[in-house]
């Protein structure tokens, strides 16, 4: 049912409606990019490029900088889920739950830092990536702790110690982390400059 607006409750202005619609469409399009870009990486350089360049993180982080925190969290949650459902990447277990939690936290933090606290996009990306690594360690530890003791012992030592696991994953992903730090602020700057004009944020 459509809401009824009175003199006291004037309802959203056209600018607010455009802003809300823009957040939704931007979120949807960047979720789609989060499915398409990893496929393009796989098409160009095989499966190994995925863990090195973290292509799914790019659109999620870039979108998070441009939308409000709730939409950013929804984009972080839906992107890996939709990609897993449509393409099988990331695999449902054990990567999908880890990645979904990591992306939700990263996207929310990036959005809060850049949109609410007005931090520079470069700093916001770096802090969001750091928080993502911490969350990855915590989720890996929780997943291992949920296994029975017998199965835990059979895991390789690197999986049993979250710090070592996160360290190894971070070293593998160094090119990807650099790519995020370079590309995400560039996208954010281009989009913001076009929306607000060249002088507003400079």
């Amino acid at each position, binding site marked *: 049912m*459509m*809401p009824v607006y009175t003199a006291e409750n004037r*309802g*959203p202005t*056209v600018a607010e*409606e*455009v802003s*809300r*619609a*823009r957040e*939704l*469409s*931007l*979120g*949807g*399009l*960047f*979720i*789609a*990019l989060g*499915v*398409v*870009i990893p*496929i*393009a990486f796989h*098409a*160009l350089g095989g499966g190994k490029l995925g863990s090195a360049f973290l292509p799914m993180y*790019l*659109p999620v982080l*870039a979108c998070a900088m*441009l939308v409000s925190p*709730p*939409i950013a969290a*929804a*984009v972080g*949650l*839906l992107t890996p889920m*939709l990609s897993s*459902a*449509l*393409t*099988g990447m990331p*695999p*449902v*277990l*054990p990567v999908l739950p880890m990645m979904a939690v990591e992306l939700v936290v990263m996207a929310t933090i990036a959005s809060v830092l850049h949109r609410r606290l007005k931090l520079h996009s470069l700093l916001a990306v770096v802090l969001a990536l750091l928080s993502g690594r911490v969350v990855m360690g915590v989720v890996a530890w929780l997943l291992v702790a949920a296994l*029975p003791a*017998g*199965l835990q012992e*059979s895991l390789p030592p690197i999986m049993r110690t979250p710090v070592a696991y996160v360290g190894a994953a971070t070293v593998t992903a160094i*090119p990807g982390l650099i*790519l995020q730090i*370079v*590309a995400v602020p*560039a*996208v954010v700057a*281009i*989009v913001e400059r*076009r*929306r607000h004009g060249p002088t507003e944020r400079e």
Partner: protein
Amino acid sequence: MILPLDIDSLARLDSPVHRLDARVKLPCCVVLIAAILVVPLAANRLLLVYAAALLAAALASRLPATWLLKRMAILAPFLVLGTVAAVLIPSAEALAVWLSVAGKCLLVLVVAVLLAGTTASADLLRAARAWHIPRTLTALTGFALTYMAVLSDEAARMITAMRSRGRVRGLRRKLHTGAAMLVALMSRAAERADRIAMAMVSRGYRGQMLALTQRPVPAAQWAIAGAVLLLAGALTWAGMTA
């Protein structure tokens, strides 16, 4: 095109499972998944009953077996690694745990694949809205599914253009070219999102997505949902008392 994106091609087949309303299929699948996940370790054999029921549903759905197996293949690496680990550990408890984990993962995936294969994505989104899944999530998913093919085409065009400009030598130059392409792709998507937003508002968007009123679900279909609930309930009770 990079992706084989005709995601609804099999949803247009005709079968008893296809004809079930998405508003009935969605809760049935959620109940089945929950019931499969709560099967206790001591009652692993109940998973076979669920497997038989799902096999019957798969046969009734007339989905091609090769398509089903291809979709199931995403679980193969996890199953192979786990099986090797379980065989290497000489413990009956570890084997039972593994059979439970692997069986549940496999059956949950079958439920999800059957739902996705027999239901059009638009119907699934409408059903999610009818079951009060937050509108933001359904709207975002709808946008993503609608524009995936467009963005996939755009990415494919950019890759073709990059290749036709000649081979890029050296890792640094490759990274530079790749990053520039990604930035262009994302900023064009943001530009497109702005145009879509303006179109939405000018066509009547007032803070929530407009949707047509849906026809009520026939009573016979709710009876099928009741049967699924009964089966899941009975098996869960049997598992708890085993």
